[in-house]
């Protein structure tokens, strides 16, 4: 069998992408524009809940208005009598479901699952639902459902006196050396608390679904970051085989971690569809996106740094707490950056979770790393000022030459290069370290730096590649594109391997009937899927060349060649002797409709169960420290802020970030993902906060006018610089993670810049004006 090297040969190149020159847009590493762009701009792209189905009905959720207690009674009479009402679902009449396996692969307890609650553990919990002929009728009927409660005292958040210290999460403990004693005897000691509030994914496309049953076959149109995982959940809820559930999610209007799971409202819609025998659409309203699933948990950390007078860290003692719900468990790993960023002989990180009356929190761009970096990257800045060393210099003095926790070499760590490139482009050397040393009229100007990191999460993938009669290529996968560029980079991969222009490649995603795929989360998809498509496309090319060489009807038959080359859709011999024909001509002369190959990157001895587990849970994911290396992406953000000295308003005026995501499959798309992360980080640093009414345990700013995310006017030009090099230990084609990396470290870089501007250290996000006034 021929071995197909990548034409762009990452091994020979510096970065393995278009910045080396000589890489075509069509190839891996090229700057091809998003192939799904025109469909989105013209409106041709149809999102999940836009499907028009015959006999479609509409469901509206009824939510609890108390944060803790019990439903005493539900009066549905008026709702049932309301015009157009078809069904009022309550815990009393809903079909019983089974509990499903969770995303970690934990076998479920043998208890029934009911997505409507009698025991209320948070405000906004689903208690009932109404289905009607039209959406408006359902809204009106839902308002007529009367619920009586026995209210109990709620624990509203981490600062509630009733919240307590929580439950230790032993799995999060990381310790080496004698951290507490080393800290106590360190010549320089700083110890501070850093807090982050509840934050929300706020995707522009709210959640929702259309569910339709045909016999015991269920089709669900739903925006999804994980078709196979969600299909499994639906299948287990209803006790039907996995194959009976089809999930369709061709486009996703932003997920940021929130669209990877089937949630209670999905169960409600699917049950209603079954009970009614008609398709049901349930669109989660914008206010409900704050309680129908969880945003980022509020967190608290204390970071104690012991150092010598030269700023060398001798000990880090870190304690973290995140909130979780009363009956669900969410751990936001707060020691994740703390334990890898700096070299220290002594280290201790421990974490508790505290149960409060909230919806179970969930994943939001870089769960764990994001708040973790806010703690350690603020703390090291404080240390820099304590010992009088430049904040960039102190980071270099404590540079971790290997993973301090795993004690393994880095696969690649271009962080020093990131610091150098970022500092150079930003002009960091001109910085006067003194706070309040720069101003422009009423504006105090400050410069801050912070680093970020995200582990390389790896898994196995599969894909189908077909070479069609007209010479075009088709790629199929049940993975998804939520704007990050899957359609585009898979087209580039297949185009490069087979040797056709990218415009002749059609990528089909977002249907669980296609080749299986694991979760699109943890920045793993690009690495997993380019690897799988590379393998499948290579197999398809082998078949094509095999046919061309051996089929008696092939024009190459007489040539007796060992191999042939395919470029720009045409087949020829490597030496150029003999004929040259198009792929279409070859397939027609040998009488083939198409060539199809399935490729996967699973270990050869994998069983059917292994595969199922790999695609429907994360139990088969490879740890980033597996084998001989520790694998991470890295970045350094340099940020300038302007703080109005009278008003306390903070505006970010300049951002230069240098990032190491290994090899970039498409620099244009990677840059835009990094920028997206940085923009989200600016919002997180300055604006975003779910505000709780302490008497009612309810988020009161549950809409996009009051929950503030950054607007265009808040964002300056952002310069991103790639410093990555191909990392063969991280993925088949040499890339590391892109999507989550950009946000990690932005908030501390801004907080550090605010300190430089004002002399005030803000350790509670977001940095709103009243904290500086």
């Amino acid at each position, binding site marked *: 069998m021929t071995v197909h090297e990548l034409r762009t040969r990452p091994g020979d190149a510096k970065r393995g992408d278009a910045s080396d020159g000589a890489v075509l847009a069509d190839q891996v590493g090229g700057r091809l524009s998003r192939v799904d762009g025109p469909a989105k701009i013209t409106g041709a792209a149809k999102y999940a809940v836009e499907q028009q189905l015959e006999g479609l009905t509409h469901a509206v959720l009824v939510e609890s208005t108390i944060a803790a207690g019990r439903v005493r009674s539900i009066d549905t009479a008026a709702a049932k009598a309301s015009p157009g009402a078809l069904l009022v679902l309550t815990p009393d009449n809903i079909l019983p479901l089974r509990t499903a396996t969770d995303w970690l692969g934990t076998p479920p307890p043998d208890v029934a699952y009911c997505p409507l609650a009698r025991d209320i553990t948070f405000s906004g919990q689903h208690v009932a639902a109404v289905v009607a002929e039209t959406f*408006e009728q359902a809204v009106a009927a839902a308002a007529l459902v009367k619920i009586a409660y026995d209210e109990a005292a709620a624990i509203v958040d981490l600062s509630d006196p009733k919240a307590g210290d929580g439950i230790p999460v032993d799995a999060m403990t990381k310790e080496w050396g004698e951290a507490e004693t080393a800290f106590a005897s360190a010549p320089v000691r700083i110890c501070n608390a850093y807090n982050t509030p509840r934050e929300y994914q706020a995707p522009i496309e709210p959640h929702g679904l259309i569910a339709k049953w045909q016999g015991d076959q269920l089709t669900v149109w739903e925006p999804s970051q994980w078709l196979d995982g969600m299909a499994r959940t639906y299948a287990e809820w209803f006790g039907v085989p996995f194959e009976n559930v089809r999930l369709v999610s061709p486009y996703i209007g932003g997920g940021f971690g929130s669209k990877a799971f089937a949630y209670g409202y999905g169960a409600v819609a699917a049950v209603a569809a079954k009970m009614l025998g008609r398709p049901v659409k349930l669109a989660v309203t914008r206010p409900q996106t704050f309680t129908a699933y969880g945003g980022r948990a509020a967190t608290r950390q204390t970071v104690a740094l012991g150092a010598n007078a030269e700023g060398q860290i001798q000990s880090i003692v870190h304690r973290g707490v995140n909130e979780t719900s009363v009956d669900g468990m969410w751990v936001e790993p707060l020691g994740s950056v703390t334990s890898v960023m700096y070299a220290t002989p002594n280290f201790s990180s421990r974490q508790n979770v505290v149960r409060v009356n909230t919806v179970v929190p969930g994943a939001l761009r870089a769960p764990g790393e994001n708040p973790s970096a806010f703690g350690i990257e603020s703390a090291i800045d404080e240390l820099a000022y304590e010992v009088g060393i430049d904040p960039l210099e102190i980071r270099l003095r404590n540079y971790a030459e290997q993973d301090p926790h795993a004690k393994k070499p880095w696969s690649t760590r271009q962080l020093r290069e990131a610091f150098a490139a970022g500092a150079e482009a930003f002009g960091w050397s001109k910085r006067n370290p003194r706070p309040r040393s720069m101003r422009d009229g009423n504006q105090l100007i400050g410069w801050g730096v912070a680093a970020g990191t995200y582990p390389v999460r790896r898994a196995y993938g599969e894909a189908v590649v077909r070479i069609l009669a007209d010479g075009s290529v088709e790629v199929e996968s049940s993975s998804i594109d939520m704007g990050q560029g899957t359609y585009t980079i898979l087209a580039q991969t297949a185009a490069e391997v087979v040797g056709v222009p990218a415009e002749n490649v059609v990528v089909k995603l977002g249907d669980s009937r296609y080749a299986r795929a694991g979760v699109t989360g943890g920045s793993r998809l690009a690495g997993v899927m380019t690897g799988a498509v590379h393998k499948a496309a290579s197999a398809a090319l082998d078949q094509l060349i095999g046919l061309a060489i051996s089929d008696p009807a092939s024009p190459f038959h007489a040539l007796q060649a060992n191999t042939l080359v395919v470029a720009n859709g045409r087949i020829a011999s490597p030496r150029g002797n003999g004929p040259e024909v198009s792929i279409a001509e070859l397939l027609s002369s040998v009488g083939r409709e198409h060539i199809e190959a399935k490729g996967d990157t699973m270990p050869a001895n994998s069983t059917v169960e292994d595969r199922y587990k790999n695609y429907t849970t994360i139990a088969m994911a490879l740890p980033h420290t597996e084998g001989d290396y520790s694998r991470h992406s890295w970045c350094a953000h340099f940020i300038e802020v302007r703080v*109005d000295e009278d008003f306390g308003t903070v505006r970010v005026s300049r951002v230069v970030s240098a990032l190491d995501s290994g090899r970039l499959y498409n620099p244009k798309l990677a840059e835009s993902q990094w920028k997206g992360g940085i923009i989200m980080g600016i919002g997180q640093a300055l*604006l975003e906060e779910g*505000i709780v009414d302490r008497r009612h345990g309810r988020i009161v700013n549950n809409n996009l006018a009051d929950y503030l995310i950054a607007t265009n006017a808040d964002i300056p030009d952002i310069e991103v610089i790639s410093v990555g090099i191909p990392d063969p230990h991280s993925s088949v084609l040499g890339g590391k993670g892109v999507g989550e990396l950009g946000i990690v470290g932005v908030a501390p870089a801004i907080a550090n810049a605010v300190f430089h501007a004002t002399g005030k250290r803000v350790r509670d996000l977001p940095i709103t004006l009243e904290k500086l006034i």
Partner: protein
Amino acid sequence: MRDFSYLRASSVDAAREAAALPGAMLLAGGTTLVDLAKCGVAEPETVVDITHLKGLDTIAVDDRGATIGALARMSRVADHADIKSRFPAVSEALWQAASAQLRNMATIGGNLMQRTRCPYFRDPANFPACNKRWPGSGCSAIGGVTRGHAVLGTSEACVATYPGDLAVALVAFDAIVHLGDRQIAVDDFFLLPGSTPEREHAIEPGEMITAIGIPASAAARRSTYLKVRDRQSYEFAAASAAVGIEFEADGRTIRDLRVALGGVATKPWRARAVEEALNGKVLEPEVVRQASLLAVEGAVDRGANHYKIELAPRVVARAILKMGETA
């Protein structure tokens, strides 16, 4: 389903007649009304669409002043050359409000009538108690999340902030609201909550805003609207100030100062004490800063909104000093 009748008014008189029906509400750009209907706050029985009325969207500016039709869109008024040159604070208040999309839909009449952003007011399902919404039911905000609530003009019945920007500029320059034949000063058009926070405007059933008149003045010509908020755009004011100055012939002594505050009071708030303290004085930074403190005389905070008491005078002082610089 909550049905309502939809009436397209054919004349101002017809609109006023329809608006007098119980449960009737006028529909202009709909950016407040539709929003509140979705929240379950507005439940009109009849919606009277006035957007097709002719002649109500004109903008006329001459030496006596400006007359702006009630149906003129926010974006058109903000961009109007004569409004920009003779009433800069009005244009600035408009373009710093809401978003471009909203400004293209929203009308001047509807803008004055926009309702508070108090989150409790906007969520009847979860917070039934709201005196503004259901008189006598209590106030959910007091004792709750009050970061955006008013520090001036509040009562025990209601502490909701008047959120708009335009009206702040209008109140500074003595604008007049035209309700057909009847005219009323903007300052009198907006009511303090007192014990009847449900009554926000001096407008009777069957009345409708037909136009806004702004008298020309030297102070309006040299004016600005300064809006301070955490987000650079598309956010209501944490505190704002509309300021206009007319100087004596020496170019330093203040003859006629106008100051109004937004984002901190239950209605657009004319700060006459600041005006009186500075009229006749030479514009000096320290004097201006001291006098600006009078803007929040009598202010009462509710905890999280305390910063507004600090912030508002600084916004006033900055705006006055900025107008002084251009002297």
